[in-house]
């Protein structure tokens, strides 16, 4: 029972971590709490469904195009909205929420409010590890998160584009003096964060339903993760995600499933009271 619960907590935590990393990347570079990420996830899930069911593409190409779509959409939000409020920190959450309204309701208008499901070729498979049962979709979620984080880590540390993003995150002015164009890095960070959102859509749309507000509550949890880990801290987001996933699952199983999100809120409150700087802050803000 406990092992099973922990396994489910890790699955949920991986999802939170995947979302949290995308948020913290954008936050680290541009100080934007990107609530609109939820809208990107939703629209990308719908695009995957549409490509699969209406256009008739095979599963993996549909998913790939859906993920790419999420990246482009996220970059567009930077280009047409966030870019203009970069110097006004108080306006950023407002713009993010406005964009969320636009994206969610676009999905509602185009595809209606019904709950639909994204079926996968492996949806009925069930994996067993000792006494613990894990559905294949959950295993894919964990693997997707792990693979994305490894690739992200390599991207941020081993490529010139990734290094440029980290430079802007640490000090945009100094980076600009050294010839790095901050504007390019902002778009790139949003694009990468969008790709992560698309991967999240692929990872959890099969276990949850697809509907216009599907990502809103999950994204709030991702923000808790980001705060737990310290805004702008990638590995903090990973650890925070796992911690939050386990706390919420244990709370849901042993106390009350209806109040699952409330346990996350409790964790957030405790942390704000006792460690207002985040669990894993290193003193300076950083992306990786």
């Amino acid at each position, binding site marked *: 029972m406990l092992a099973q619960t922990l396994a489910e907590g890790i699955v949920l935590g991986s999802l939170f971590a995947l979302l949290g990393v995308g948020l913290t990347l954008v936050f680290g570079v541009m100080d934007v709490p990107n609530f609109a990420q939820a809208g990107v996830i939703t629209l990308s899930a719908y695009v995957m469904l549409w490509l699969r069911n209406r256009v008739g593409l095979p599963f993996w190409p549909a998913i790939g195009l859906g993920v790419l779509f999420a990246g482009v959409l996220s970059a567009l939000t930077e280009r047409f*909205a966030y870019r203009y409020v970069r110097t006004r920190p108080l*306006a950023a959450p407002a713009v993010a929420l*406005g964009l969320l309204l636009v994206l969610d309701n676009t999905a509602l208008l185009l595809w209606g409010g019904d709950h639909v499901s994204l079926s996968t070729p492996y949806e009925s498979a069930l994996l067993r590890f000792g006494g613990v049962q894990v559905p294949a979709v959950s295993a894919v979620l964990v693997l997707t998160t792990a693979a994305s984080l490894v690739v992200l880590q390599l991207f941020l540390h081993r490529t010139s584009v990734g290094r440029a993003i980290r430079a802007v995150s640490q000090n945009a002015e100094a980076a600009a003096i050294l010839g790095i164009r901050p504007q390019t890095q902002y778009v790139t960070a949003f694009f990468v964060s969008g790709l992560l959102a698309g991967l999240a859509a692929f990872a959890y749309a099969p276990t949850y339903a697809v509907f216009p507000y599907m990502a809103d509550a999950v994204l709030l949890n991702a*923000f*808790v993760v980001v705060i737990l880990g310290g805004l702008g801290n990638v590995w903090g987001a990973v650890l925070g995600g796992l911690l939050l996933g386990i706390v919420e699952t244990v709370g849901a199983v042993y106390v009350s499933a209806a109040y699952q*999100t409330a346990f996350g809120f409790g964790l957030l409150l405790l942390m704000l009271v006792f460690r207002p700087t985040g669990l894993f802050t290193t003193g300076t803000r950083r992306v990786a």
Partner: protein
Amino acid sequence: MSPEPAPEPPTAELSRPFAAELSPRLAADSARSRTLLAARDYGGLVLLGLLAWALLTGLNSFWSSVLASVLIWTVATSGLNVIAGLGGYPSLVQGAFYGLGAYGSAIALTDGLPLWLAMVIGVGLAGLSGLLIGAIFARTRGQYFAIGTLFFGVIVALVLNNWSSLTGGPLGTPVPFVFADAGQLNVLIAAAAAAALMLVRFIQASRLGRRLVTVREDEDLAEHVGVPTGRTKLIGFVISACVAGFAGVLIAQYNSTLSPDLFDYSVGFVMFVALSVGGAGRVLGPLLGSLFIVGVPNLLNLPSGLGLLLVGLVFVAVVILVPGGLMSGLDALIRPLLSQARFRRARHPVDHPDVVR
């Protein structure tokens, strides 16, 4: 357009006290004009309340119900105007306080308590939650504050949905109607809207209001010059919560039935949108914003998805293009017409635009 280089000229109400500190001659002068301004503003708001009541009574039932929603939202967003408008703190939890006030009063009335006690319970419940949440989140800033308050809105929505024995669960609960007729309720709604606007006008000119503005402009600096920023934010937040609670009492009576989706966590954020679109920190901002956010989609009879889509688009455009909201757009239109105001500005060059934005 304004002749000053500052992007947003100071509102007369805010800059006057500073002028008084700078010169005794101006002090006498400005005390007189302050009284005049107050008389103008409060008088205007009383007239506005009477107009609202006349319209509520005179219009047909459809228009009247749209107007009633707008007025109730004006009350709730006026509360938000204290912490988010004057204090600059993006509180996204106003919808939860609104819901707590509504459910608190509805449950009290169902248990047979008199209206005044139900009002006290509704407002008190909202205020106490405000105190609790404020005590924790008033120490966080900007983004953290927005996320934390949004999350509390989610928790309240969860409780309203799941504590079925008390709230009736997702199906909602009926509310006993305690007025003699709808006319009495109309009087209360119009009076409440005018009173909420007056409250913001009063706070804006008070020491609390000036302190909140210093917190908005530069919290660190405010702390350095001795403003008790933590307490200021907490008081502002609790006032916001209480006013929203009262708006909840009104909507419970007006709707005669409550369901949790009226107080979904997104409501708090749409209230924030309404305030920003109208003009944060301006007395009439909540009224304009509520007219726009609640009134327009209702009047055009848009499907809810399209309505919210347009609200989102307009909101993003307003935040990017007109940071001061509709009120500042109105200023830009009206100001050139008021040659008198321009004359006054020329005589009192000490109205520092940079002291208070």
